[in-house]
């Protein structure tokens, strides 16, 4: 029965270092994570989402393609649904436009409210040509964003919407 005697002083020393260590770790960990996270987050870049749209069924008339995927926002995972207006241009290339109006973000409609061959925004009457180019004299000042596209097994995949430069 020869236990190591632990003096009062030693005991306090041990426990306090322990607690202090935890506290320091508690403060440091989030800081380290903040520093590292943006680096890790870049893994998500260049992600493509598969849609149910068959590429050979696309025509020169813009069709609405909805697609959904899971989005993780901190601790909160949600299913988001996005829309694209997709068609083939004269060169046969696939054009996928974001429906988000460049004025204040309403959803635009192809030939909405009887506007022939144009995208129409019901909120403040914004108009865009088929290419996505904004019609001067209406509220939007920039063209609609264009999605990056890919084709996989005959199905359309959409990436990130990017600003267009059309004069």
């Amino acid at each position, binding site marked *: 029965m020869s236990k190591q005697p632990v003096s009062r002083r030693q005991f306090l020393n041990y426990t306090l270092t322990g607690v202090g260590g935890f506290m320091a770790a508690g403060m440091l960990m989030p800081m380290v994570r903040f520093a590292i996270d943006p680096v890790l987050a870049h893994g998500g870049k260049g992600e493509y989402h598969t849609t149910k749209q068959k590429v050979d069924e696309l025509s020169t008339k813009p069709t609405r393609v909805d697609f959904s995927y899971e989005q993780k926002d901190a601790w909160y995972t949600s*299913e988001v649904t996005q829309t694209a207006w997709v068609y083939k241009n004269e060169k046969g290339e696939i054009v996928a436009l974001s429906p988000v109006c460049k004025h204040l973000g*309403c*959803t635009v409609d192809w030939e909405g409210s009887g506007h022939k061959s144009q995208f129409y925004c019901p*909120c403040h009457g914004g108009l865009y040509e088929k290419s996505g180019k904004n019609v001067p004299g209406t*509220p939007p000042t920039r063209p609609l964003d264009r999605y990056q596209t890919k084709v996989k097994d005959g199905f359309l995949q959409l990436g990130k919407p990017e600003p267009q430069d059309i004069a």
Partner: protein
Amino acid sequence: MNWNGKDTESFQQQKEYVDTALVPLVPISFESDMKETASQHEFVQLLTMLLEKQFKGRILLIPPFTYIKQQEEEEKLAALKRWSDEIDNAGFKHKLFFTSDSNWKLAEDKIDGSLVWVPAVPLEHMEDSYKYSLIEDQAKQFVNIIVHKWQQDLS
């Protein structure tokens, strides 16, 4: 626009473009109709979120006006009146109250603003993809109603 820091900031800069306030009316009860009120909240919440997305640049979606289900009608009407006065003072031209609580339907003429009553569909056992297409179908008719309202405004 949503009730968050970022959107309300752009609201304050673009006020003249955002002329419509969307307010869900949501009852709360802990009695036998607890589940019913909760489902109504779930349904109305999803529906108004989708409408906000569609009309982001012209609609501000305000947090729900919540009240105790058992509350006296007079009391509820008075409280709602305060809200609608406040919304008027903020300069909104249109007030849209969305609810699944049929009691409001009976008091419709005492409400200052447009009341939209939609019977809630219980969503709890539904698969996500089905749920969203159902909400979208429902939302479509309201999209038309809202656009129509705005057009009336012009003529």
